């Protein structure tokens, strides 16, 4: 497999850095988790073709690499967007309409919770209470907390994040 076939839209330089890291560790299955950590740090996520690349490089079955990636919640196979929208679905937010807020984000962006828009601008996530009940329904975008969000405000909110 050539590096070119595995650019996944990313820079070849990332592969070069990954290769350098792989070259610095023993070519055994013991190196799998450190290599996955490095790859996720470089690429932001671990798509299947990157997993297959690592499997070949370490001579570990691809099914086992996939097994490790899906075992640890730290590893993700979803690309992350530049901005992460985190809608609170805790009790207070929920009773004040957080579900409709999530649905509005979802509809506007065309993605479900846990997914990323094809242009990698946004990743939509949801969480139980993040302790801003007084602002319910609350939404965090990156590190910014937005309070009293309602479905009508969603489009305007997104405009602030390019």
């Amino acid at each position, binding site marked *: 497999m050539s590096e070119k076939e595995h650019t996944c839209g990313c820079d070849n330089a990332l592969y070069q850095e990954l290769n350098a890291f792989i070259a610095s560790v023993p070519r055994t299955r013991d190196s799998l988790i450190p290599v996955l950590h490095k790859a996720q740090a470089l690429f932001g996520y671990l798509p*299947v073709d990157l*997993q297959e690349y690592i499997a070949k490089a370490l001579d*570990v*079955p*691809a*099914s*086992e*690499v*996939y*097994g490790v990636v*899906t*075992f*640890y919640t730290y590893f993700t196979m979803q690309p992350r967007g530049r901005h992460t929208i985190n809608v609170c679905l805790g009790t207070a937010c929920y009773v004040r309409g957080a579900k409709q807020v999530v649905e509005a984000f979802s509809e506007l962006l065309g993605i479900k919770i846990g997914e990323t828009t094809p242009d990698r601008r946004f990743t939509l996530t949801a969480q139980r209470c993040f302790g801003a009940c007084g602002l319910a329904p609350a939404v965090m975008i990156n590190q910014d907390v937005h309070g009293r969000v309602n479905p009508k405000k969603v489009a305007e909110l997104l405009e602030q994040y390019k």
Partner: protein
Amino acid sequence: MTVNLTIDNQPVTVPKGTTILNAARSIGIKIPTLCHMEGVVSPGSCRVCLVEVEGARTLLPSCIAQVGEGMIVHVNSKTARTARRTSVELILANHPLDCNNCSRNNNCELQTIASDMGITASRFPRLVQEHPLDLSTSGLTRDMSKCILCRRCVTACQNIQQVGVLAAQKRGFATIIGGGAKANLAETTCVQCGQCAAVCPVGAITEKDAIADVWAALDDPKKHVVVHTAPAIRAALGECFGMPAGSRVTGKMVTALRRLGFDKVFDTNFAADLTIMEEGFELIKRLTDAVRDKKAVALPQFTSCCPGWINFAETFYPKSLPYLSSCKSPMQMEGPLIKTWYAQKAGIDPKDIVVVSVMPCTAKKHEANRPEMVDSGFKDTDYVLTTRELGKMVTAAGIDFVNLPDGRADELAGESTGAADIFANSGGVMEAALRTAYEVITGRELPFPSLHVASIQGLDGIKEAAFKLDGCKPEFSFLEGVTVKVLVAHGLGNAHKVCKKLEAGDLAEYQFVEIMTCPGGCIGGGGQPRMTDDNVRRARIAAIYSEDESRTLRKSHENPEIKRIYAEFLGEPLGHKSHHLLHTTYTPRQ
């Protein structure tokens, strides 16, 4: 070094390093197991073998925990019994309970253990995972709804075969055994060997069932249904009816097949003898080209009887393909000959003939469905049954197998020699080929006691033999003094090692290499009665060699039906007709 301990108040002395499980077994205490397989490291995942060890912080899985000096073990304490029972109850809470509709009904390790423990009701709420059936391959069916996550199949696929398709994915309650990101088996590098199915304790992995198709053919008065049975079946079929491993049931098998309603009962052994003629002469031709004519020839020649090995070579070592004999497997020689030679002799239109083969193998189902296997002008093999499936059909027909009289295979494609019998064992194809090739080259019998090449027999993973050719016939004088070196490997983990040597150019001094996918060869095939231990393999191997030794004719070229088919139909080995019907080509695949 030995260790003394007490198990359920019985003193026991065992070698250091013995597991508590085996120490208990040695004094007749049976501890249930589900994930354990003899001879490989247990994953310890099922928790069905827990025992109480005084002074230990927790209960220990006896399949992993080793004995210690002075250890006091309780298998039959309330704590241990309850823990084991709870483990089984938890597995059952997450397992479909439609046992009557399962292919493993009355032959299921989980069912047996639950019954032994006297479990009649579940204390836990049921939480069954629904997964779609994987019917994507010709050989295997995977129903992950029934999987108990014991990981035996993972051990078989990753550690023994080193094909690396199956692994545990996800975690906790969502855990599933699968082929990684690939949704179904057909998209993976699975070679269909079926070792996963052979070790599955429940009905999660089984062969793709052909029983209904075969009954339909038998019930169709317009069809002339012909069956033939692989060498390994006769040493294992009896186990389906409670006979001990290693029972030779050749004659009963023939009678049972007639009673099932097959119109002709042939023997794949006939085609095994034919394979030796074709493959032996192919080897002699390659040697002639290389030694006498100094041509660039792919040597060593590799055997090609094993469909799992073919899939493996095509997938993982495409560069090895020129080294593979072009001979089809015996099954795929027998099929087209039945639809041409036999059809002609019997005056039957081949379109009305249904060829059923009984194989110890799941990859054979894949092989029969290869698009190129239509050289008779029809599908050369219509249906493949595993040994287990034939056992089920015999049972369903109400045939008292154990007490059947012996029968004899039908003429034309049913006669065989001892050389064909030993195809079932690792090292057997090689020995059979040497019996004929040596005699063709020197005019004398293979100079070993009882015609056996002892160093390539048995269960060692990679085996070798070497001997010098002398006194060659004049036409083979160029081989005078040549040392013949042969290599035999079984289990795909060992095949990996051999193929890596081939790629590195380290096999140049060898002339012939035999590879069998399954540990032990076909006697340990993925379609054989299930077993997880080498003693069963050894018993079957011994049965096959005694079958061979019981014969008057033990060399393929002495088979009168082989002589006849060359005289009346095929002409000569490697001739035009042979080339068309008995040889094939291989395709690299990703």
